[in-house]
Structures are given as C-alpha cells and as structure tokens.
C-alpha cells in the first residue's frame, strides 16, 4: 500500500500534470468499456505497460500488483466457463456428476476470453493511474469543482490519516506479537480485535485534537491542501488526444 503511494510520488512522470494523466487513463478506460474490440484492448494493455515502464515503475512490482486481479479472474471466470444443467446440453466437454451435467460450452469460453482481455485492459489503465498519479493530487484537482468540494475534503483527510493509522497498526502489531498475541487462532482474533478497536479509538481522539489544532490556526470551515501544480503542456495534451482518437479510429477501420 505504502509502496504504491511512494511510486505515485516518485516516478518519471511525477512532473506531468494530473489532467493529462487523468485524460489518458480515464479516456482509455472509457474506450475499453465502450469499444471492447480485441485490437483496441491489446493496444491499451501494451500502451499502458509502456507508459508505466517509461515512468520507471519496477517490472517486479508490476507483476506482484497483478496478483489481486488475477485471483479475481481465476475465481470469477470459472463459473463462466463451466455450465450446469439437469439435462444433457451441447458442450465442448461434458461431465455427469450424479443427476447433474457439467460442461464447458463454446459460449462460455468465448465470453471468458472476451472478459479476460477487457478486464486486463481496464486494469492496466487503473494501474497506470495508480502508479503514476498520487491520490492526493487527483482529490485536490477534483476539489476545484464545487459539488465535489466537501467529499474531496473528507477524502483528502482520509488519505492523510490512512498512513498515520497504518503506522500505528504496525507499532501495536509488533508490541502484541512480542507478547505472543498471535500465538494461536483464538488469541490472534482477540489481539486483532483489540488492535482494530484501539486504532478506532485513536481515530476518534485524533479527530477531536485535529479540530482543536485547526481552530487555533483560524480554521474557517474550509480545509486548504497544498500540492504542487504541474502545468498542462499543450503538445502532450494533443498527443494524448491523438492516441485516444487513434484507438477509436482503429475500431472503425477494424
């Protein structure tokens, strides 16, 4: 978790404007969803890996990042590939278990294949955004829009305190572990409960202290977050729009 955030702040694209990265990631994601043709999906997967490698995101880390989506895919594609019925049905392979027929259908395999590509393309867009753009920058940018202001303020507070609480979790966990708090399952559950409860308690107390500290600094119902604003470069913007238009055009030609 911390490493993904570290990378978002320390990559070769950190000086590129958040608008440009949002346009590329968001635009490609939209195209993947609206025009899910194999050629487009493969191009997006390839393009996003190139962008991440250009941003100097370590290849090894990218591979570990894929673990969660692959787990979901393995779990969720299984019911798509295997169909079941009480009657025999046309299938590539059919098994009979008691009165139940289970089989791999062509429709199922085709749907799974299409889904696999679409999901991988969409996840690539998400990874590109997550590894190159700090969440705080996205939230601070979106807070310029008045209807989102309050939610973005809460989100920015959440973001900052996630790391404070996570460090606190690490300290409590270490202290519990050194006192055999996780020696067996029963103690593990109790220790984890105490850990979570104390982090919760700390969060309520910190909220009260934070408000007092803000009042002492002339807080006037609006939180001001500072972040470095990178200028939007028209050349890059045109290039990104060109790539997105090119992706759409590929669908039409194909």
């Amino acid at each position, binding site marked *: 978790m911390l490493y993904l955030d570290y990378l978002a702040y320390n990559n070769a694209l950190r000086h590129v404007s958040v608008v440009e990265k949002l346009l590329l990631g968001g635009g490609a994601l939209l195209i993947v969803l609206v025009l899910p043709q194999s050629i487009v999906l493969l191009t997006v997967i390839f393009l996003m890996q190139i962008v991440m490698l250009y941003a100097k995101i370590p290849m090894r880390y990218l591979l570990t990042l894929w673990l969660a989506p692959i787990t979901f895919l393995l779990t969720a594609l299984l019911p798509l590939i295997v169909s079941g019925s009480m009657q025999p049905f046309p299938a590539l392979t059919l098994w009979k278990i008691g009165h139940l027929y289970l089989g791999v259908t062509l429709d199922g395999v085709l749907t799974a294949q299409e889904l696999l590509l679409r999901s991988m393309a969409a996840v690539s867009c998400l990874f590109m955004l997550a590894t190159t753009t700090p969440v705080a920058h996205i939230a601070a940018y979106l807070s310029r829009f008045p209807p989102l202001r309050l939610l973005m303020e809460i989100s920015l507070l959440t973001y900052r305190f*996630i790391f404070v609480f996570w460090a606190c979790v690490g300290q409590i966990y270490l202290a519990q572990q050194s006192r055999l708090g996780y020696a067996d399952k029963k103690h593990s559950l109790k220790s984890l409960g105490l850990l979570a409860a104390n982090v919760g308690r700390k969060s309520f107390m910190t*909220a009260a202290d934070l408000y007092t500290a803000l009042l002492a600094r002339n807080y006037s119902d609006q939180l001001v977050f500072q972040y470095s604003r990178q200028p939007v470069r028209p050349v890059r913007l045109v290039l990104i729009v060109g790539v997105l238009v090119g992706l759409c055009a590929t669908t039409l030609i194909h």
Partner: protein
Amino acid sequence: MKKYVMIAYFFAAGLLVPSVGYAMHIMEGFLPKEHAVVWLIILLPVLFIGYKQIREIVTCHPEQKMLLGLAAAFIFVLSALKIPSLTGSCSHATGVGLSAVLFGPAVSSVLSGIVLVFQALLLAHGGITTWGANTFSMGVAGSFVAWGLFKMTTTMGLSKKVGIFLAATVGDLTTYMVTAGQLALAFPDPVSGFWTSFVKFIGVFAITQIPLAVCEGLLSVVVYNTLVDNKERGFSTLWRQDQGEHE
C-alpha cells in the same frame, strides 16, 4: 492440451483463491458498460441522501468533518487488516457492519464509497468502472442489512454482542450475495440462465466468504466492546446520535 490447460487453471485457482480475500470486489472492467452504468444510477439516490446527511452534520457541527474523514480512514485500515480465517488462510474484512452500526447506513454508504476509491487506487482492488456496483453491494446492501439487523436485535432485547455479531456477519454475507447476483445478472449461464449462474458464483466465493464473515462478526464484537468500554474520550456527537443504542 486442453486437459493440461484446465488442470493448470484449477491448480492456480486452488493455490491463489483462498490466500487473497479481496475477491468480492468486482475488478476493473469486468462488468459490461450497461451494467456498470445501471448500478451507478441505482446507487446515486442513496449516495445523494448520504451526502445530504453529511452536509447537514458538517453545517451544524463543523468538527464532524474531521471525524468523517478519520472514520473513513479507520474503515480503510480495518478492511486492510488480515483476519485469520477458519479455513487456515487469511482474508480481509469489509468493515461494513461496524461502520453501519456506528454511523448509520446512509453515512456508511458514502464512507464505503470513499473507501472503495482508495482501495482501487492504493491497493489496486476493485475498480473505477465497477465502483457503482461495488459500492451498492458493500455500502448500500451490506450497510442497510447490517444496520436493520442491529436495530431489530436491540429492539427484541437481545444482547449487543449478538446484535453486532449478526450485523457484521450477515452484512458481510449480504455483500457477497449481492455481488454474486450482480455477476450472475451480467453473465447468466448460457445453458440454464440466471439462477444457475448465481449458484455458481455463490459456490466459488463461499470458500473464502463464509468463514470470513464469521470471523469478521467475532472481530466486530471485540472492536465494538472495546470502543464502548473506552468511550469517555473520543466519542463524538456523530456517534452519539444513536448513543442510547451504544450504552
């Protein structure tokens, strides 16, 4: 060749699935565009109500803004903790039962929405296009069922421990069942339709989700008891709105 591919697939699934318990968030790009949009539209009214409630709270009590932000951070951290599951593997909690009981279902749904965005961008779990469906299953269905169950058990005079255990366990299971329903609606079985697909999705996720729900229920009881026992400081008015229930 096909046989070996299938064997490799089942081996990989068996190896990976029980070890990572975030599987119940639908991943990025998995839902077709129509479904992604429909779930977002269904979600909007609830989010709007939650947003309005938060605005009212923040207008009357400006200090609550800090608490809401920190409560969302707490839920995120709670959902990132690895729970020792009954199956021997580790899984992650949703935190939805506890947050619904502490903050109410509407506020909890907005907080869940924020937490899901952070899970997508900081942990690469879930996604942006599937955010509507995931927030609906976790933040709306999970929260409302958990809160309703807690209210019902307290009205019936059952102990708080039973109430919070049922709220967290059933809230978690509801999230899991609604997600299975969302997936079955998007991908009905080519042979037998929606219900077979629903049973299949329920079946594959049950391996991790049922033991996880029970463990989350037990964990929530410990967290809730400790919070209530130490409520002299740090208890805010946001939580106190239902203080009678938490005494």
